[in-house]
């Protein structure tokens, strides 16, 4: 317990406190502003009220946009998870000609072609196909963007499923379909769940693509409506924005709590050193 040791301990906890404050302070707004009688863009001890909640639900587009978010997100997430699981399983088990090149290209694609770099052609393509304002079209664009990374991560999980399980199942006469449904998927479930949650959080928060492709306010998800509420300005919307931000954040927070409780928020495989 030398003085030096004490000084270092103090310095250590000061550092941790500063970092904690850096991450925590911005979030306090989400806890205070929704319940403040005079919410603003700033932090203060609120005059507690629940009136803002009622005002938010009275706004014509808040509930619609949350439903739109859900529709967009469910389509994109299910398409991504199902197609990625099928592709990852086949790529993990069967040496399709050109497989290694394909995997290499998928890895490149997932990092190089981003929504921001390809926004112009995506916009033009959807415009010419008449798919502007189509939720299904937008969901497919989002899914297309997530698929390469999803396949890549899932293939690592599939590779880790022991092949002997499938071989025994086949000895007992199971068809490939049964092997996949009853042997491989249950064993690879943590991987599939990871991809499902990852895709959901990504699609739920995605702003750019719906912002580009869904111009009609009745079709827009919460991400875009929240921005519209801000751009319009006016004091009425400052009562809506905080509550709406909170409502819109809840699914992500719930999923996060679920994942960290069930699987722990850790990297398993997939990270090459």
């Amino acid at each position, binding site marked *: 317990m030398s003085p030096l040791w004490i000084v270092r301990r103090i310095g250590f906890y000061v550092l941790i406190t500063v970092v904690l404050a*850096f991450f925590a302070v911005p979030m306090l707004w989400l806890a205070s502003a929704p319940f403040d009688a005079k919410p603003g*863009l700033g932090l203060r001890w609120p005059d507690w009220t629940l009136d803002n909640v009622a005002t938010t639900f009275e706004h014509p587009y808040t509930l619609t946009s949350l439903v739109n978010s859900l529709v967009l997100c469910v389509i994109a997430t299910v398409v991504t998870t199902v197609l990625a699981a099928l592709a990852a399983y086949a790529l993990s088990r069967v040496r399709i000609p050109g497989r290694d090149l394909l995997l290499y290209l998928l890895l490149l694609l997932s990092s*190089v072609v981003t929504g921001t*770099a390809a*926004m112009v052609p995506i916009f033009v393509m959807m415009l010419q196909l008449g798919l502007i304002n189509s939720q299904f079209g937008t969901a497919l664009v989002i899914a*297309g963007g997530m*698929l*390469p990374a999803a396949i890549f991560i899932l293939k690592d999980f599939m590779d880790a499923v022991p092949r002997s399980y499938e071989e025994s199942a086949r000895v007992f006469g199971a068809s490939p379909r049964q092997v996949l449904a009853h042997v491989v998927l249950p064993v690879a479930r943590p991987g599939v769940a990871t991809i499902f949650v990852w895709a959901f959080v990504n699609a739920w*928060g995605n702003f750019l693509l719906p912002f580009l492709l869904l111009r009609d306010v009745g079709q827009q998800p919460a991400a875009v409506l929240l921005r519209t509420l801000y751009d319009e300005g006016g004091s009425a919307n400052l009562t809506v924005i905080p509550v709406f931000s909170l409502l819109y954040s809840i699914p992500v927070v719930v999923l996060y709590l679920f994942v960290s409780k069930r699987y722990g928020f850790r990297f398993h495989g997939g990270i090459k*050193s």
Partner: protein
Amino acid sequence: MDSSGLGVRRAVGFVAPALVLIGIFLVFPALWTLYIGITNYQLTGPAAANPQVVGLDNVIEAVRDPLFTNSVWLTALFVLFSAVIGQNVLGFVLAWLLRSVSPWLRRTTEGLVLLSWILPSTVVAFLWFAVLSRDTGTLGLLLGSPETSWLVQYPMTSLIIFNVWRGTAFSMLLYTSALAAVPPSQLETARLMGASGWQTVRDVVFPHIRGHVLTNTLLISLWTANDFTPFLLTSGGPNHQSEVLPVLIYRQALEGGQLGYASAMSMLLLVGNLAIALVYLRLLRRRA
């Protein structure tokens, strides 16, 4: 090899739907960028109906355009300070410090850092308006200068600090799993020999995690260079002072209607991404 009994034909059938979707919504747009980029295509007007091929004029114009060079410079600053330095260092420091604290403090800190990563970007923008805005903003109150409008007076610095807050979680997670692979016996030896914290990190830990540092730096650089969130905070303003490439491309294409010109800029961004990714894959292969 084929323990699943799928056979090549059925395996191709399993892979095909994913590839079709990737082909339509990722590969085709990327290639089409190359074509639109050499035309004078516009959102409205005569060039909308009947775009003409103008060759590399767009690229030449972009390279000479002060708005574009300004944007490339800002993007480089953004990537360097917020990702390569900010997220990387803070992520490592967090992973390193949190090994030796009580479990609840560790969980709380990790939880907050992760939350800042997974909250939707439009919500996060409001959280930071509340920190940085004039008169009522939290930072102004803390520093006793409420008249400062941080996003207007220091737009790039604000974006950089914001992005450190937003993205450090990934680096923290990656370094936490990397540090778990460093043999405890070597750390113990370093401690017994009286090595300081910094010496231990430099001589014992770093050689083990060099590959992780590389992976992390390149991934977060790519993500930061392609991040559209700055648009939500500053929209590139004031007066183009925080107009990073994604924002410039958006404004040229959708607000200015210059689809051809914006595509040429996208093309340059794609080439930049490709260069970073190829360097990374080459280094990775050399290590393997």
